[in-house]
């Protein structure tokens, strides 16, 4: 549908025009890769877990995707503050179409970002098991991006201004990232943490990335895809619902 396309296109245009945003959001993954990757590399290897950079790379790609996509979804708040949101709200278009277009836009942007980070990991010494399997890994990135863009929009629809942004970063995004298996193998953690990771959608996203990039998985690709789909559908549905209730 046209509305979906134009909402998508807007996100792409805004992203491709903000060079500072692209460059800025590469710094964090780079820091993680260098400090964690090289800092813990020796310990990781000594513990018999293999090459840490290889393990870490999919996790950092996942990280850049969750940050980019949630941030993108939350730009609804800016639109509200700068007034543009009204223009989309009075349009004779089903709210689900607006939600979906925007979400896909955010997911595309996050995937582009993820691909840049992937290149960065390759330069730092990451060896994927197969070059061919990078293609399905990119699809997984798109999947993760869709899920978290929808979550970002859902959260943003419930907020009036940017006051709550820090709250969302610290109480939602950071825990989602740190408690997922992005930084450490879930096989060797306490049961409680295992349980928490098991309800964190990012764990399944990163797991699916690892399946294609380093041929390792905790949950199995099938379960990963089921859980990712489930969360995505729920966030899209809730997001459209909350979005349709926005009043300005």
């Amino acid at each position, binding site marked *: 549908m046209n509305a979906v396309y134009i909402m998508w296109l807007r996100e792409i245009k805004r992203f491709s025009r903000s060079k500072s945003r692209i460059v800025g959001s590469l710094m964090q993954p780079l820091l993680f890769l260098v400090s964690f990757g090289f800092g813990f590399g020796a310990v990781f290897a000594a513990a018999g877990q293999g090459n840490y950079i290889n393990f870490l790379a999919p996790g950092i790609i996942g990280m850049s995707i969750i940050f980019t996509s949630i941030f993108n979804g939350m730009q609804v708040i800016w639109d509200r503050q700068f007034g*543009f949101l009204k223009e989309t709200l009075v349009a004779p278009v089903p709210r689900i179409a607006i939600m979906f277009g925007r979400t896909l836009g955010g997911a595309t942007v996050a995937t582009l970002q993820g691909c840049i980070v992937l290149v960065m990991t390759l330069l730092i010494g990451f060896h994927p098991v197969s070059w061919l399997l990078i293609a399905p890994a990119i699809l997984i990135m798109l999947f993760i991006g869709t899920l978290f863009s929808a979550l970002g929009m859902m959260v943003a629809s419930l907020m009036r201004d940017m006051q709550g942004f820090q709250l969302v970063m610290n109480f939602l995004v950071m825990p989602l990232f740190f408690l997922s298996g992005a930084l450490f193998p879930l096989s060797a953690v306490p049961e409680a943490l295992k349980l928490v990771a098991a309800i964190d959608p990012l764990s399944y996203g990163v797991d699916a990335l690892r399946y294609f990039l380093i041929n390792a998985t905790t949950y199995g690709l099938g379960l990963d895809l089921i859980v990712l789909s489930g969360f995505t559908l729920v966030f899209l549905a809730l997001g459209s619902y909350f979005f349709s209730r926005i009043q300005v």
Partner: protein
Amino acid sequence: MAHNIIEVKNLTKKFGDFTAVKDISFSVASGERFAFLGPNGAGKSTTIKMLTTLLLPTSGSIMLGGHDPVREADAARKSFGIVFQDPSLDEDLTAQENMEFHGVLYSVPRDTRRARIEELLNFVELYDRKDSFVRDFSGGMKRRLEIARGLLHHPKIIFLDEPTLGLDPQTRNHLWQYLEKLNEEEGITVFFTTHYMDEADRVAQHIAVIDHGQIIATGSGEELKKQTGTQTLEDAFLKLTGSEIREEGADSLARMRMFRGRR
């Protein structure tokens, strides 16, 4: 002017304990030029937001182009275009892109869209600047672009909430001429608010005056002047609404924000 294109009955809007719009009823005939006047904070924008699906009424009923904005929002949305009181452009897109975005959202077919965008941008004298980012526009240029955008999809009703705020006299005259032409030739219904009484008197065939959320007078400019025994609409307005200045509260903040956004 066979039927009423807007029909409002006992409309009320409460924000918490505060009643911004109190039990108002009015109607606008199809093809009419209707002015909705009132002091700051009277409830004009709140009413327009309820008519245009941006706010849910607390109680009362609305019919807009034959549809209820509450229950058949999308059908109602098809029937109008709107120029908001506050800024509503995407500053990170160009003028042309803002127009395109609108045209696609309203399913204006591609060829018609291109042609209308060119025509409207020429009308508001922004065609030369169509590829500039909106953030580089002056306040008046942004306003003109918003007006062009509101008309792009050929709505049956155009809502204009203080459309001429911040526009120079040349642009104002130009705008009203164009709107009157659209109104006469295509029968588009014009629903507007303004604080320029001479403008309202000149353009509107029908006027409703709202104060403290209640409609206190309706009629043509002449009728309002006759009712109040005054010479100008401005005097009639002052007589109807008193001359004390309204405390604005939250609204003055919104206004300051708007001015900062525009200038």
